């Protein structure tokens, strides 16, 4: 199992290529079987990776057997393993949902889906800043495909905004990389961290500028205020299964911020220590408030859910910016929760939209909702969870976060988090009552399309994750505690990385 760290990238990539080969000759059924084989393999690999990391703390995989600072290094810590597993878990119901029919209507769906997973995992696993950029791009381009394959009209328009915005952000990413490499002379994040720590003062200005641009990029991908304008439409227009998968995309930006600004610009970074958090805490809070407003004002359920994604991103910004291990740990618990639940809501919105006789998920129209009991129940569970109401995972995450707020910030951070919860309650109760309740008591004569079993199961699986996270909150929190503590221990990374010697090559002098 020496090669475990690279498998979460290779497995989906190979299956993506295989599916592309197969789609030339085989029917949808065969494709689905292979897609599931790939999916299950990835899930198994992700679980094994998490277990191994839990045993060994930090896995360093020297690609090409080059010493860490020369080549590209995969660096798997608890955070990475958590993100990889979250992605795999999320992908299962998404694939399930897509296999209910969308996969036949979107050209290259299966290949793109696997590639998207490969990109995400690559971003989570790499220890190299430029390689992070590359996998960002893999992930993004696959997401363009998933968003736009089979698209028409409004979705194409949303795609335009999404794509151009992300390309512009990528340009800034490259600028930042150029500056940072120019000043630090390496791209390995850990090595960069070590060099930043001892950078002479006359060089810090440029490094700081590079770090600032990098922050811009990650914030743009994570949809932080005011860089979130692309998100609502893109997420609301994406095919349901894709929108659900996208819920993890903003989290990649957050992941990157957490990674870069704890490792490279963390406590040990001298004059550049903790440069990001002072910016992020207030903007994160503002994002939360604005997103909550968005939830309230949403004309469509899916727009509302998109704002919920935004809200969770804002909450995570707050959590990570607080900078203490407990808050980061709370954030790391909250992250998969919000991914799963908002994904469930996206899928539900699609199911609901199809059962409202052509009115979709627009909230203004009064439309008879056929077969509403199960969707309504699922909506209720998801809404309770995402609003942070007890007893579900959202509550536990927020609870932990509230507890972790330092005294100095307690007042306003609590106000923001609790206030946004209230606004979400207001918004979602309106959404729910409009969708499920505001109809005639007498059922219509129109025969209702049956709920597709795969789709409902997908939602159930996602909500099941949330419930499992509630029940097993304690072990999960213990894991995230360890992950947070690990993140803050920068010397640990530097030492491990420098001590990891190539197998046959000479180590760096």
């Amino acid at each position, binding site marked *: 199992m020496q090669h475990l760290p690279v498998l979460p990238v290779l497995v989906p990539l190979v299956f993506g290529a295989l599916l592309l080969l197969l789609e030339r000759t085989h029917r949808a059924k065969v494709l689905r079987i292979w897609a599931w084989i790939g999916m299950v393999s990835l899930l198994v690999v992700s679980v094994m990776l998490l277990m191994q990391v839990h045993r060994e703390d930090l896995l360093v995989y020297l690609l090409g057997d080059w010493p860490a600072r020369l080549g590209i290094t995969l660096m798997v810590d608890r955070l990475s393993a958590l993100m990889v597993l979250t992605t795999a878990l999320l992908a299962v119901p998404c694939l399930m949902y897509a296999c209910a029919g969308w996969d036949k209507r979107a050209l290259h769906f299966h290949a793109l889906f696997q590639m998207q997973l490969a990109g995400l995992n690559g971003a989570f696993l790499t220890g190299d800043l430029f390689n992070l950029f590359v996998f960002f791009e893999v992930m993004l381009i696959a997401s363009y495909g998933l968003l*736009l394959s089979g698209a028409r009209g409004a979705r194409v328009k949303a795609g335009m905004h999404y794509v151009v915005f992300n390309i512009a952000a990528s340009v800034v990413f490259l600028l930042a990389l*150029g500056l940072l490499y120019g000043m630090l002379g390496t791209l390995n994040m850990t090595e960069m961290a070590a060099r930043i720590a001892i950078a002479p003062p006359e060089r810090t200005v440029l490094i700081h500028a590079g770090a600032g641009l990098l922050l811009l990029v990650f914030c743009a991908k994570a949809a932080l205020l005011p860089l979130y304008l692309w998100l609502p439409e893109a997420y609301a227009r994406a095919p349901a299964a894709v929108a659900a998968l996208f819920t993890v995309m903003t989290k990649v930006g957050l992941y990157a911020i957490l990674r870069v600004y704890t490792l490279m610009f963390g406590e040990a970074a001298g004059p550049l220590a903790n440069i990001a958090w002072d910016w992020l805490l207030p903007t994160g809070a503002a994002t939360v408030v604005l997103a909550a407003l968005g939830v309230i004002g949403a004309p469509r359920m899916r727009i509302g859910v998109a704002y919920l994604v935004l809200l969770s991103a804002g909450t995570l910004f707050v959590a990570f910016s607080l900078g203490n291990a407990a808050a980061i740990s709370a954030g790391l618990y909250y992250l998969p929760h919000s991914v799963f639940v908002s994904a469930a809501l996206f899928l539900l919105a699609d199911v609901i939209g199809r059962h409202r006789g052509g009115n979709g998920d627009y909230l203004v129209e009064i439309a008879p909702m056929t077969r509403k009991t199960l969707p309504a129940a699922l909506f209720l569970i998801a809404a309770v969870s995402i609003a942070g109401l007890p007893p579900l995972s959202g509550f536990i995450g927020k609870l932990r976060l509230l507890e972790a707020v330092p005294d100095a910030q307690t007042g306003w951070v609590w106000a923001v988090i609790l206030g946004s919860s209230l606004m979400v309650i207001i918004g979602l109760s309106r959404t729910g009552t409009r969708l499920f309740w505001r109809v005639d008591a007498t059922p219509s004569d129109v025969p209702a399309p049956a709920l597709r079993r795969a789709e409902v199961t997908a939602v159930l699986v996602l909500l099941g994750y949330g419930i499992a996270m509630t029940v097993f909150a304690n072990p999960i929190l213990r894991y995230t505690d360890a992950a947070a503590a690990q993140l803050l221990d920068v010397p640990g990374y530097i030492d491990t990385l420098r001590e990891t010697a190539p197998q046959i090559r000479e180590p760096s002098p």
Partner: protein
Amino acid sequence: MELAIATAIGVLAASGIYLLLRARTFDVILGLTLLSYATNLLIFASGRPVVGKPPVLRDGVAHTLANYSDPLPQALVLTAIVIAFAMTAVTVVIAMREHADLHTDHVDGEEPDNEKRRGGA
């Protein structure tokens, strides 16, 4: 020389940004192209470019940075060029589709003067 490179980057970036902020898809694509030139030059510049020292090793010349320029930024730029190309291709096609589906080449998919809001829906 550094001044020339820096100003070239500046001009490319400024022009790119200006075009990026235009309202038409094609202008935006042009802007992105110029911006990616600026970006590539900046990454390239991070290797402290010199004239006439390509990083192709020759016998009898010590393999040090005194005799060869920094290969790493060049490799990075290569990757960046390719990725920028891929992105351009996708953007171009989206622009085509947007124009076909929505009958406008405005980046927002609708002409600003005849805004057709989806009334209440």
